[in-house]
């Protein structure tokens, strides 16, 4: 009995500790999400957490002191005496409210009362500004209207799709063919080739960049979609081959033998048997490769560079961080736009996603 109650107690502790850790893990993303919907002027004035109901001093009333009040003498306010310094910092009055200078020169005092407050000003302007690339207006608190140019993120979003889909399909198709040969065909140099594939798994991409960049310059591929597809295809191949190999080599031998008996060729076996059977694995590695390309910054930076019409999301956001580092309303919205796809995949295809990420974790 005692034992059980101790266990139950420790379970509560575990739950609380874990909940705190989870909260810490979630807060950064929540902060981004909330901020991306707050008006530009609010973001820089109050923290995003003020959207949660919180206690704050709110001006309830004002007191006008005689204009000739001497600030060097003790000051009489509603029958109580305060010093100038106290009023500057804010001081508690007898009834629980706080007195504070509203305008020291005009001798007006704010009567502040602690009350529940919640910043509920939200807007979708940030997203409009970020997505359309058109100019839009921000009204400042003091009434001035500023015009700012948005960022044309929708074009970048599209470009990222254009980069990601072929850069996923091409390597995985090629890799699956190779994986079948490695797993089920016997040929000279098979071991050597496979060892090379394994070795290339963790090789840092930097090792290949200077030579490829030179080849691309010679071929006119810098800053083109074709160039970045090929680069991603090459860089994705070792992992895709290994991933597909480990699945295809586990398939039962009898499966092919009976097909062979029936006179099916390797090509038929591959397209009619292997491919359909490998769909779950292909899905996992495709999701991994797709997200890898979607989230990639390094390869895009090197091979796309500054080409404006093929700009991908990660490049665009990195640019914005550099050029408009304090425009948090735009940065947060842009970052969230880039996260839409990964989050959709994460929540929609979680099983394949996790399997793909775990298998793909070795990628260079």
């Amino acid at each position, binding site marked *: 009995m005692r034992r059980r109650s101790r266990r139950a107690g420790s379970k509560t502790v575990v739950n609380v500790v*874990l909940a705190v850790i989870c909260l810490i893990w979630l807060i950064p993303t929540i902060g*981004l999400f909330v901020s991306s919907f707050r008006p530009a002027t609010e973001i820089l004035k109050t923290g995003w957490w003020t959207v949660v109901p919180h206690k704050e001093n709110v001006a309830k009333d004002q007191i006008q002191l005689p204009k000739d009040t001497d600030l060097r003498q003790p000051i009489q306010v509603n029958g109580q005496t305060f010093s100038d310094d106290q009023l500057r910092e804010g001081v508690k009055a007898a009834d629980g409210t706080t007195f504070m200078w509203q305008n020291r020169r005009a001798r007006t005092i704010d009567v502040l009362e602690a009350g529940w407050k919640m910043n509920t000003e939200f807007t979708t302007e940030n997203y409009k500004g970020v997505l359309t690339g058109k100019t839009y207006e921000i009204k400042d608190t003091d009434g001035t209207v500023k015009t700012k140019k948005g960022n044309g993120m929708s074009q970048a979003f599209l470009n990222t799709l254009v980069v990601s889909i072929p850069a996923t399909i091409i390597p995985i198709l090629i890799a699956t063919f*190779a994986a079948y040969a490695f797993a089920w065909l016997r040929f000279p140099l098979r071991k050597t080739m496979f060892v090379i594939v394994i070795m290339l798994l963790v*090789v840092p991409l930097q090792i290949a960049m200077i030579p490829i960049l030179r080849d691309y310059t010679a071929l006119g591929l810098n800053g083109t979609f074709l160039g970045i597809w090929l680069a991603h295809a090459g860089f994705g191949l070792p992992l895709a081959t290994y991933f597909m190999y480990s699945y295809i080599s586990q398939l039962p031998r009898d499966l092919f033998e009976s097909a062979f008996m029936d006179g099916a*060729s390797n090509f038929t076996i591959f397209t009619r048997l292997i491919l359909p059977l490998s769909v779950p694995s292909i899905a996992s590695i495709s999701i991994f490769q797709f997200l890898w390309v979607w989230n990639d910054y*390094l390869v895009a930076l090197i091979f796309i560079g500054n080409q404006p019409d093929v700009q991908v999301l990660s490049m665009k956001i990195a640019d914005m961080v550099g050029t408009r580092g304090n425009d948090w309303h735009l940065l947060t919205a842009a970052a969230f736009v880039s996260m839409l796809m990964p989050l959709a995949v994460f929540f929609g295809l979680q099983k394949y996603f996790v399997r793909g990420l775990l298998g793909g974790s070795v990628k260079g």
Partner: protein
Amino acid sequence: MIASAATPGMVRKILLSILVPAFNVLLHTGIFIFLRDSDLNSIVYAVLAILWGVVGVYFMYWSLNWVVEQYSDVWRRRIQPFLFVGPAFLLLSWLLLIPTIRTLIMSFQNAASTEFVGFANYAAVFTDRLLITALRNNLLWVVFGATACIVLGLLIAVLADRSSFERTAKVIIFLPMAISFVAAGVIWKFIYYYQPGDEQVGLLNAIVVALGGEPQAWTSMTQPWNNLFLIVILIWMQTGFAMVIFSAALKGVPDDILEAARVDGAGEIRIFFRIIIPFIMTTILSVSTTIVVFTLKIFDVVMIMTGGQYNTDVVATQFYRQLFMFQNNGYGSTLAIILLIAVIPVIIFNLRQIRKQGGF
């Protein structure tokens, strides 16, 4: 008789063996040049590319395979495997294998890769202040980042295993793995944001001010410890990976061993260090190598957060800087080779693991 009967067939086979590959080469070169030079709407372009990627690549395999099917059994069995691995291997050779060798050669050449300079670049890497800083920071990343990911990952996996909301907790911790380092950079830059005055909208500075401290510009303050604030981002993103794998490994620890230990009066902490840790040691090792490799190659976070300023450069960002700002192929290649050397133990480890599993 036999010879004359074989000849027309032979001629046909030889013709096919030349024409079909030649046609493929022409076709794909044509598509290649068309895709490179055409100025299409990007959606049309993408659709064409997808068609090429699927139909074109498939057609290549299919047509070449059809040629091979015309050969005698013996030759077919010899050639067909190369048809299957060939395209993959050619692409790998062009984009990874040969570049590695070319980079190695360039690391012994001068900035413009015009003449050989022996080990001068390597000597520079260990004497140039910029490059030493990069090496030191990479070490910081590995020591603090990788260790924290593994320890936290294990801790959270154990806690989740004993909690009442395991699935939810795992989803929350794993979530940051899905997003890009660039987006994560924006998220954390906002958390570290500093503006003069009392009203701080960056979460970290707001907390510091609320506790009565002075707000700081975290990513540029006391070097080299500002690196730790960047490393936190890695920890936030990669702990989920370690956790998921550890969590699976923990489920493999047999319950009866744990029960027996409890009956013998062993405390939970003792059980953890004496039974669970040894049991999942191989998993810990492989997760560690993966995270270390990942950490060695860290690039995006640093680029977004500081651009390598304030002594936060790592090898990968210094590589970029040498390549694009100083146009120094020699230093750039040498840094790439150093990254490669750093992962060689992992390559050997991987090969051993796969050999053990009977991979080849």
